[in-house]
């Protein structure tokens, strides 16, 4: 809904099969949407023809050990089936949110949208694996844009995860939409974020981006092995860094955890049939383990995780993030803010850019607050910061407690050749960093 009117109503039904063959130590693939016996046979023949030819130039000799003989099922935890939630109920909630954002003529644009995804994957292999996984996913977004003269400021809200129809509660939509619009109005009145080296308190809805770009991607073992070099890039992390590199301060504990109920990228098995378990990637600031599937583990001889994932039936699996979470610390929000002499609180990512080795980053947020002597003084607009990954994480001086953890993620993590976009989950409490390069917008 946009400005209380329907903007787009779309349903996408995507179904197909990916055939994987192993010939002379090389895995190759053919995908088809023709699920008849003859369609599957044609895809199999094509997979065999191309894979036999390609195997003479294979990058590594794999075996069936990279395809475990696993059996099992998974289903998202939800209270109400999504297909029992009517389009009318959803539209009603979105309309209420759109109207709730209409708090001033200065709010020139109001958008409320919901994306509901139901996915079933069936995995069968000649190794004996037989896995069925059913996912129910909801992604709700609000955006309010305040415009005054040539200035505009947008504030957004997102909720995403493995949920059912229970999330479509009108009171909740109205409350979050109102807050979103009020903060957009606050921003249009606000001063620019100051420039300098300041303490920086990142809220969970910015921490997830910081985790994603500067921990998740550089730890993907296929990147470290060079598979991704022509697209998203390589990694500053070297194989010899595992077990040694002081990635961040001792307060930094990061896990790969696809077992979290309701998190966006939870599952029981990856797309090679490998059972998924929680693993520490970074413990007390030390890098321990990479994001590498059984294939990447065999190639690199590094510890990995169950993260071989395809975006859909038409793409072969590659090393991906799933849920990458920063584990909570001990501090309350008041304790975190009280540690800031001069600093900025930043909420909700709006701009992101990092180099192809995942070192030099610059991120921008929607909403900032200026803090002096442990007290929030004012709202500031256009807050940005930049840094270099390992240096930045070693500036971590405060981690919020478990009550402050928020679980979010993204439906749109891009990677791979051919390109794939996949959902990832991230959770984090607010985190405090010392002496970071911060700056605002320009007139």
């Amino acid at each position, binding site marked *: 809904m946009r400005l209380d009117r329907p903007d787009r109503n779309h349903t996408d039904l995507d179904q197909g099969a990916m055939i994987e063959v192993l010939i002379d130590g090389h895995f190759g693939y053919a995908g088809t949407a023709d699920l008849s016996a003859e369609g599957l046979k044609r895809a199999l023949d094509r997979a065999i023809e191309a894979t036999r030819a390609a195997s003479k130039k294979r990058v590594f000799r794999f075996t069936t050990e990279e395809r475990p003989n696993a059996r099992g099922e998974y289903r998202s935890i939800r209270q109400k089936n999504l297909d029992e939630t009517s389009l009318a109920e959803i539209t009603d909630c979105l309309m209420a949110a759109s109207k709730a954002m209409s708090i001033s003529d200065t709010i020139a644009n109001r958008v409320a949208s919901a994306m509901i995804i139901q996915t079933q994957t069936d995995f069968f292999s000649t190794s004996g694996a037989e896995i069925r996984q059913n996912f129910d996913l909801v992604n709700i977004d609000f955006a309010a844009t305040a415009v005054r003269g040539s200035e505009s400021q947008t504030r957004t809200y997102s909720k995403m995860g493995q949920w059912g129809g229970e999330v479509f509660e009108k009171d909740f939509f109205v409350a979050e939409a109102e807050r979103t619009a009020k903060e957009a109005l606050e921003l249009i009145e606000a001063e620019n974020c100051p420039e300098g080296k300041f303490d920086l308190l990142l809220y969970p809805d910015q921490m997830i981006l910081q985790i994603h770009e500067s921990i998740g991607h550089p730890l993907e073992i296929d990147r470290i092995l060079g598979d991704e070099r022509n697209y998203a*890039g390589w990694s500053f992390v070297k194989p010899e860094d595992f077990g040694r590199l002081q990635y961040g301060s001792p307060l930094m504990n990061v896990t790969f955890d696809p077992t979290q109920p309701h998190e966006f990228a939870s599952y029981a098995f990856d797309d090679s049939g490998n059972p998924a378990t929680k693993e520490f990637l970074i413990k007390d600031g030390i890098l321990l383990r990479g994001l590498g599937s059984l294939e990447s583990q065999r190639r690199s001889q590094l510890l990995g995780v169950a993260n071989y994932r395809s975006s859909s039936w038409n793409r072969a699996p590659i090393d991906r993030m799933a849920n990458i979470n920063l584990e909570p610390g001990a501090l309350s929000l008041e304790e975190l803010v009280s540690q800031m002499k001069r600093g900025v609180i930043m909420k909700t990512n709006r701009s992101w850019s990092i180099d192809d080795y995942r070192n030099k980053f610059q991120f921008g947020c929607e909403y900032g607050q200026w803090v002096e002597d442990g007290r929030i003084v004012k709202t500031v607009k256009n807050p940005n910061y930049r840094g270099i990954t390992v240096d930045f994480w070693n500036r971590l001086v405060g981690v919020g407690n478990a009550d402050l953890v928020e679980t979010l993620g993204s439906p749109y993590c891009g990677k791979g050749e051919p390109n794939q976009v996949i959902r990832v989950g991230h959770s984090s409490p607010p985190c405090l960093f010392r002496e970071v390069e911060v700056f605002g917008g320009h007139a």
Partner: protein
Amino acid sequence: MTHKSEFTHHLRRYFQRASEALFKELRSGEELTLSLKAEDQLYVRFNGNLVRQNTNVEQINLTLGYQGGGRTVSQSTTVSGNADRDIPHLLHLLNACREEARVLPSDPYQVPFQNNGESYNEFQGELPPVDQLFDEITAPAAGLDLAGLFAGGASIRANRNSHGQDHWFATETFFMDYSLYDGPRAAKGVYAGAQWNSTDWAANLARTREQLQLLSLPQQNIKPGRYRTYLAPGAVSELLSILSWGGFSASAWKHGYCPFKKLAEGEAKLSPLFTLKENFSLGLCPRFNSMGEVAPETLTLIENGELREFLVSSKTAKEYGLKSNAAERSESPRSPEIAAGSIDEKQILREIGTGLYLSNLHYLNWSDHMSARITGMTRYACFWVENGEIAGPIKDLRFDESMYEALGSKLVGLTSTSEIEPAVGTYDIRSVGGVRVPGMLIDDFTFTL
């Protein structure tokens, strides 16, 4: 050599049959547009001049755009390509559209479907047979650390509606999008076309290899600051890609998101050297959009630094009383061309004098919409130039610069020759299209990290 015309010819007949089966089921007051996206591609990923993964993908996707009772609903689905099996499923989706339309509020800005004419464009290509392809690609690169993606096969876009509109666009092309590495140093190349030619591929590799050899010069330690900077066409193409994200969109302007708001409202101008147009005569993608609306063959967006026209979809046009120019809903350019200038590319090092030569950029994003500021990284073959000669490669630098300045008072000039950069995107389905851009010389370009 092989070609994929069997897939294309089959789909032409299939699409006509499926659409007619749907149109004849429409009731009074109902209209339907059927859009087709399909491909039969072989994708091969390389690492170290070896094959990491090979994937054949045959996929056919249909989108039903339904209008009835002032409501608009769309349903997309993958289909098998067997009309007998698919038509009952498509009729079921038509009924689903009707049911959804019943519960939606009416859309005051609905643009009624109409007959936007007919067009037919089909281009055949020739690719190496699969049993020769891997040798064809890797043999000339023997001894090189090559990483990249080959994609080759048929791509189809088509559109029919219940008013008789009928557009068909089918191509058989390939691209080899690759990087050559020497340790951490890398140079980028793309070889693309409709007819695979071993000699051309070897020559393309040789040019990229020459650039890689230049990277073995001593690395230059360049600190953040402002430098005279040349963006080669590969870098300009990246810049244009991010500019296209809201920069030329009428709805982004009306909704308050457009970074060129000041340009639109006459508060700012770009350099008189900068001209940008949509140019469908490049033949890289169809002129019709997913609604089947046909864009003008050329459409000037910015002329000599002044905004002439935003891209306007028919929905935006209806809502804001503007004139549509058959843009997609996203209102991003589909076949953009930046006009060439007068700088002789062969003299570019002399023109730089002392400054930076950037072959490519990476991971660009708007850092401040209101001042049209973009941040991003240098990537691949990027050099420090001193007194008109390459001194050596640089370590990656981050830039953060307002486009009002970079394409305004800081723009020194553009090269007299342009290059076509083919689309190499493959999210969900291989993209069609590309851009045509010259190189760009900019004074005092701002690097921050």
